[in-house]
């Protein structure tokens, strides 16, 4: 385990770099379909980081819901709109330079704050991994009220999406 540890660490940094590059590609690529595929690579990298943080259930949910459902939804709606055959369209709106400045300043401030804050460190020797069984118990115990709220919210959002997207009768 200890001999393998530098390899694991390097692999984690490689995953982080690949996800950042894929996120940049998802934002900057002109072809929106390629951007959606790059977004999928970012999601898979984030799932790998979840596994490294011992959040196994979270990684599984990330792959199932994001890569399985959300990316499929995005690709379907790209195919239903004109997105693909329009190659000469401009990528950026006319406020892209101020937007770049704003997000550089914001990211710089956040990184500076992250480095200055003294984070409380838990002793990682007594860390008990969060299993799916423990998550389920606390989801049905302490967090049962937000769980019910989120299920009602989800069903309302999905019915609303169907109502908004369906065709009118007369057209």
């Amino acid at each position, binding site marked *: 385990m200890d001999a393998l540890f530098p390899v694991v660490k390097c692999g984690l940094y490689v995953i*982080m770099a690949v996800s950042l590059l894929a996120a940049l590609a998802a934002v900057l690529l002109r072809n929106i379909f390629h951007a959606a595929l790059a977004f999928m690579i970012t999601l898979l990298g984030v799932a790998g980081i979840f596994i490294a943080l011992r959040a196994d259930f979270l990684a599984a*949910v990330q792959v199932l819901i994001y890569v399985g459902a959300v990316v499929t939804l995005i690709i379907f709606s790209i195919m239903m709109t004109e997105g693909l055959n329009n190659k000469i369209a401009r990528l950026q709106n006319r406020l892209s330079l101020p937007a770049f400045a704003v997000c550089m300043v914001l990211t710089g401030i956040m990184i500076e704050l992250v480095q200055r804050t003294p984070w409380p460190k838990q002793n990682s020797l007594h860390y008990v991994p969060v299993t799916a069984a423990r998550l389920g118990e606390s989801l049905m115990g302490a967090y049962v009220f937000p769980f019910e709220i989120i299920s009602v919210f989800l069903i309302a*959002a999905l019915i609303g999406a169907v109502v908004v997207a369906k065709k009118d009768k007369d057209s």
Partner: protein
Amino acid sequence: MMIPLEHLLIFSSLLFGIGIYGALMRRNLIGILIAIELLLNAANINLAAFSRFTSLEPDTGQIFALFIIAIAAASAAVGLALVLALFRVRKTVFSDEINLLKW
């Protein structure tokens, strides 16, 4: 035992910055939705990292991340339905061509 917490936080800050840039400057509405999903993913990384490194009760962060994933799925569904309805009416997916209510 692991990589330091700060590196994960810096990674998620960079992801958040990329997402903000995409959401502000993209013209395609679906591109803006992809950027918003990137923002929610950056928040999820922070929650999982704090639940691993600093929290006394590690369940809480992961359950919050689960709720964020559910809300992200709902927002993607509603947002893409809005894009489809808009495309049916106005025949465009570009955010700066949708200026009917602009004075």
